[in-house]
């Protein structure tokens, strides 16, 4: 998600994604789990037919628009099994959800029973969350890779994904055809940079092949996964910073080549990107997470049939062509007095009909595998009847287990600052990445 520009990324794109991610997550884990976590809770049975808790109460759910709709769709079904429980779903702002959850965990009271959080912030809360490992493991096969593992950290499982966010590249086929660019010719990022010369010459600078923001790490994250670093900025056991690894120096060299290309809209701000994409002034959306089609269909319906999805280019020819962003997960705080019942509601909301309702409301790529298996047979008219769901699933299948280490957001901000100096030519690539690595190590106390 980061690749576009930082303002678009941090602002419009994130908001759009969240709006899309509406409902739910919770589906899966059915029974048992909470027996280990709650006092006196009856173990749930597999498949979801857990016995109702002995006492009633209220199950409070916090989330933002785009995450809670799945839960809302399952309240009636939930109440058939749990008639004594009332479900109170609260739609808050994205930042409010995260801040309020932290405040309530720190204060020791006030946390909801189920809470949606951005998976990249999971490690900020894990000491206050229920380990759902035993309850969730039986549902692993029902989630598309790599969504199930996203909610894990150091051997414990904390939350189920509401959606999946593999990444590709979106391009305007009509414009690419007009300027003589063929998808099959774009295998590496370098190929894309080179192709920009054609567009620049033919359009006399009126059209940019793609746009980039210098201080965002979105493309860096795609390249990190392609280079084998599925912890983005950290190694797989979250002990070391990898941003200045030789492989990442190689990757950022490719990034710099892209930035220095002849047909780049550099550092667009605010809604400038959307307007330029809509007006045909930019022909390619390099940062293309699975939620992005909602931006297209919502803001550029007139461009139906013109966009296509392709895999992200590789750093080197023949290398992996993958990328992954950050879905939402549902977690259960330890404070919840009804952990087992909360788990049941979460499970209902994220599996089966809950997942379907969430998809119908948001159209965001589901994490629930049976649903994606159904969708992948359906061509998408907006993308010229291209079967984008099949491609999303293929990219997801090729993606290694992703994880988000401690201090992810801070590392992201620090790296963004140094990346900006590198791309703008103020710092050499290796020195800039080493400076970024040193600052991240110092502030996060990692190796």
């Amino acid at each position, binding site marked *: 998600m980061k690749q576009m520009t930082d303002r678009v990324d941090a602002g419009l794109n994130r908001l759009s994604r969240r709006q899309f991610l509406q409902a739910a997550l919770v589906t899966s884990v059915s029974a048992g789990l909470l027996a280990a976590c709650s006092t006196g809770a009856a173990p749930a049975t597999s498949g979801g037919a857990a016995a109702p808790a002995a006492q009633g109460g209220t199950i409070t759910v916090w989330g933002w628009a785009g995450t809670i709709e799945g839960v809302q769709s399952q309240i009636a079904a939930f109440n058939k099994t749990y008639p004594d429980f009332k479900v109170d779903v609260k739609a808050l702002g994205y930042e409010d959800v995260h801040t309020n959850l932290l405040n309530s965990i720190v204060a020791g009271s006030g946390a909801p029973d189920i809470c949606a959080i951005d998976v990249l912030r999971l490690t*900020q809360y894990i000491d206050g969350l229920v380990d759902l490992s035993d309850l969730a493991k039986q549902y692993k096969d029902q989630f598309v890779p790599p969504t199930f593992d996203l909610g894990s950290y150091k051997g414990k499982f904390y939350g189920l994904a509401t959606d999946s966010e593999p990444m590709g590249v979106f391009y305007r086929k009509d414009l690419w055809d007009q300027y003589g660019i063929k998808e099959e010719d774009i295998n590496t990022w370098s190929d894309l940079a080179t192709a920009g010369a054609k567009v620049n010459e033919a359009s006399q600078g009126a059209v940019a092949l793609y746009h980039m923001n210098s201080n965002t790490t979105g493309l860096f994250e795609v390249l990190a996964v392609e280079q084998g670093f599925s912890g983005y900025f950290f190694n797989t056991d979250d002990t070391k910073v990898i941003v200045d690894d030789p492989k990442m120096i190689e990757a950022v060299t490719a990034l710099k080549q892209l930035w220095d290309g002849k047909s780049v809209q550099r*550092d667009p*701000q*605010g809604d*400038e990107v959307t307007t330029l994409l809509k007006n045909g002034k930019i022909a390619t959306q390099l940062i293309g997470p699975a939620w992005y089609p909602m931006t297209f269909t919502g803001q550029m319906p007139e461009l139906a049939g013109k966009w296509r999805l392709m895999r992200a280019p590789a750093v080197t020819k023949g290398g992996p062509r993958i990328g992954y962003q950050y879905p939402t997960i549902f977690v259960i705080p330890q404070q919840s007095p009804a952990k087992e019942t909360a788990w049941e509601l979460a499970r209902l909301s994220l599996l089966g009909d809950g997942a379907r309702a969430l998809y119908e409301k948001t159209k965001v790529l589901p994490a629930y595998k049976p649903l994606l298996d159904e969708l992948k047979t359906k061509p998408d008219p907006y993308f010229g009847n291209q079967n984008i769901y099949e491609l999303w699933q293929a990219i997801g299948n090729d993606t290694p287990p992703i994880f988000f280490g401690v201090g992810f957001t801070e590392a992201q901000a620090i790296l963004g600052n140094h990346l900006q100096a590198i791309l703008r030519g103020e710092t050499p690539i290796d020195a800039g990445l080493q400076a970024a690595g040193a600052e991240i190590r110092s*502030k996060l106390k990692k190796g």
Partner: protein
Amino acid sequence: MATSVQPAQAWQPLVRRRHWWSTLAPYVFIAPFYLIFLAFGLLPILFSLIVSLYDWRGTAPSTFVGLQNYQILFQDPALYKALWNTVYVWIGSVPPIILMALTFAVLLNAQRQRLRSLLRTIYFLPVVTSLVITGLIFGHLFSRSYGLVNGLLAHVGVAPINWLAEPAWMKLVLIVALLWRWTGNDMVIMLAGLQSIPPDIYEAAQVDGATAVQAFWRITLPLMRPVILFDAIISTIGTFNLFAEPFVLFGGPGGGMAQAGLLTGTLLYQNSFVYFKFGYGAAIAWVVAAIIITLSMIQLRLGNREAD
């Protein structure tokens, strides 16, 4: 004699009781403020000092680290970036705001100003305008591709400027936004100060043949000095705690491109409420507080010296 003494003795306890109450009453009346301040002001302030000595991140247990947060902070390039940006914005915005606020207030305070209420409302409108709206308006005004400002500049041959992504221009946009938003607020303060100056003084000056300009320099400005000083100090505090405008304009607390919009207020927020580093955030708060206190004392000293 005895009969004349007895009534006085009888009244003595009552007098003593009244004396006791009259001594205590003022404290009782002002006690609610101090109790509330103690609970919601002083204790949190002291607690934040203690927190600043801990490494406390998110929901993980906190660890006592002594002055380590301060040591790391003083080596943090982000602190110096934020301080430089804040001082830049402070110098760029506070003096012009005070100057414009005083000018508008003097004009509005004129005896024959018929539209005083209407103009006062208009000047004050930006203060009550939603910050989200402000962010949208300035975002559109200063958009590189479709902004009104670049559109006007294009007529005089100026190439499009990326106002919200080039560090020097970003700070200028922020300053313009602050001028637009806060001048009306400060004008109201100035107007209140002007209206407290007795008109007799101006009448006497007029009788003595003073012109309007002389009256401004010899009467208005000296008598307004305490108000201007007050305004300068609260504006300084406001700038070092500034959060909403840079947050809205630059898409979050990070300060946007090259951290050009990172101020001390947003640095504090970013560390405390995005990274959840409460100890570090508290250390930033105390360093910023020390800077604000120092600057305020300097301003007070300068103001008092001029008054003397």
